[in-house]
Structure formats: C-alpha cells, structure tokens
C-alpha cells in the first residue's frame, strides 16, 4: 500500500514536471521563414483571384449584381412560361370550336337526311 502511494506520488511529480517542460518548450523558439518562391506563388494566385475584376463582365464578380441578374432571368423565364401556357389554352378552345362546328355541319340532325328514311 505504501509502495502504491509512493508510485502515485512519483507519477504525479512526473506529470507536473512534464507539464512545466511543455509550458516552457517554446522558450528560445526560432521564427519560421516563408517558403522559397513565396512571391512567385503569391503572384500566380493573385492573377487567378483578381482577374475577374477586369473586363466587360467584371461587374459579375460582385455578388449583388450576379444575384440581381439571376433573379431577372428567373422572372423572365417564369413570365414566359405563363405567357406560353395562356396562349396554348386559347388555341385549344379555338380548335375545339372548329371541330364542333365541323361536327354540327355534317353530323348534327337526322332530319336533314330524313327523306332517306321514307324509302
């Protein structure tokens, strides 16, 4: 039992020592240097990221303008769908009316051909 208590104490001291060593481990820390050719790679990244801000479509790089343009296209699309569906329902009615008058003209009343039954 005494030995277990001793071992526990030693472990505790050991842990405390490690904690202190870890807390002091950054003493005398050297500064890391940027990797070689840092500027060259930075230039390449800037070319990619900053290029959309030039030219005729430069305004699209602004999210507000992109969203506004997208909304406009959606409104136009939805509007077109409504217009087309409205026109085509008009056409269907017209077509039905034509068919009906055709039917009336040729097949409506048996009296028209009643004279045939006399025979």
């Amino acid at each position, binding site marked *: 039992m005494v030995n277990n208590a001793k071992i526990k104490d030693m*472990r505790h001291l*050991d*842990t405390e020592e*490690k*904690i202190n*060593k*870890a*807390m*002091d*481990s*950054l003493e*005398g*820390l*050297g*500064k*890391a*240097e*940027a*990797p070689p050719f*840092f*500027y060259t*790679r*930075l230039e390449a*990244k*800037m070319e990619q*990221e*900053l290029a959309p801000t030039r030219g005729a479509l430069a305004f699209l790089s602004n999210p507000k303008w992109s969203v506004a343009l997208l909304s406009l296209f959606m409104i136009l699309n939805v509007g077109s769908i409504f217009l087309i569906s409205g026109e085509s329902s008009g056409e269907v009615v017209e077509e039905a009316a034509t068919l009906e008058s055709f039917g009336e003209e040729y097949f409506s009343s048996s009296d028209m051909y009643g004279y045939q039954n006399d025979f």
Partner: protein
Amino acid sequence: MDDSQLILDLQNRSETAFRELVAAYKDRVYNTCLGLVQNEEDAEECAQDVFIEIYRSVDKFRGDSKLSTWIYRIATTKSLELIRKRKRQKRFAFLKSISGDQGEEVQLAGFNHPGVILEQKEHAQALFQAIAQLPENQRVAFTLHKVEGLPYQEICEVLDLSLSSVESLMFRARKNLQKLLKNYYENNLKT
C-alpha cells in the same frame, strides 16, 4: 522606405511597393499563420490570402494604427477563418464516414514548429495540441506572444483590447493549457 510612403505607393498600385511590402513582412505573416493554423501548407495559403487582402483593402487603411498592427490583424483574422473552415471540413468528413462513405483517411499528425529546439520537440508538440483546443481569443493572444514574440502592448493594438484584457487572456490561456496538458500526460501514462 517609410511606412507612410509605402502605403501611398501601395494605394497607387505600385508593384515595386507591393514587392517591398511582401519582402518585409512575409516571414512575420507566415510565422504568425503557422503558429495559429499549425500546418505548413495551410500557413502558406493563409499568408498568401493575407497579402491579397492587403492589396484589396489598402485604400481603406486610414493610418489609425501602425502598418504592422494592421497586417497582424489581417493575419490573425485569415488564420481563424481557415481554422474554422478546416473544422467544418472535418465535421463533414466525420458525417460522411458515419454514412459509410469512408473517403480519404485524414492523418492527424502532431505539429512540429520548425523553430523548436530538438530536445523540446516532443513537449512542444503536446503544447501545440493543447493550444489548438483553446478558445479563439486565448489561442490568438498566446500564439502572438509565444510564437511571434509580440509584447503585450502590441497584442493590445492588434486585438484592440486593453492591457488588462490581454493579461487576463494570457492568464486564462496558461491555466487552460495546464489542465489540457495534465489530461494529455495522464492519459498517456495509462496507455
């Protein structure tokens, strides 16, 4: 070239001035980013983003603070943004793994800062792991002081806090680090 002239030239989009700025600050920016993000590839990406942000927003720089203060501020902001992004990616990867999609296995290696003395490497690795678990403001304050070597007064300017606030952050950071390290070493002893 003094700072005010450099800023004027940067605002006039002078490439020479930008090159000079990068040459003067790239090591400080890289070291700061590396201390925070704890990964060399991420630190380089972050450092590049810092200079791109400087290029984009130099017109907004009013000269209220020193140029170095402003640059450190951007560096810490960009580093924290990258840390948050990596955390989101890890969460997403974890959810994917639950759904059965193993994807690529991510190796979580301990971070070795290149400036650590050889004999201290193992302890420093444990410390950096603990730093990564601190709340953001404590993590930034501790890293700026211990890794980048900034005095408390300069940290106040970067974080726009009072001296007592920075002292408090450092005190809490040390306490939390000691707790985290205790758990770490006690768990290691058991295994």
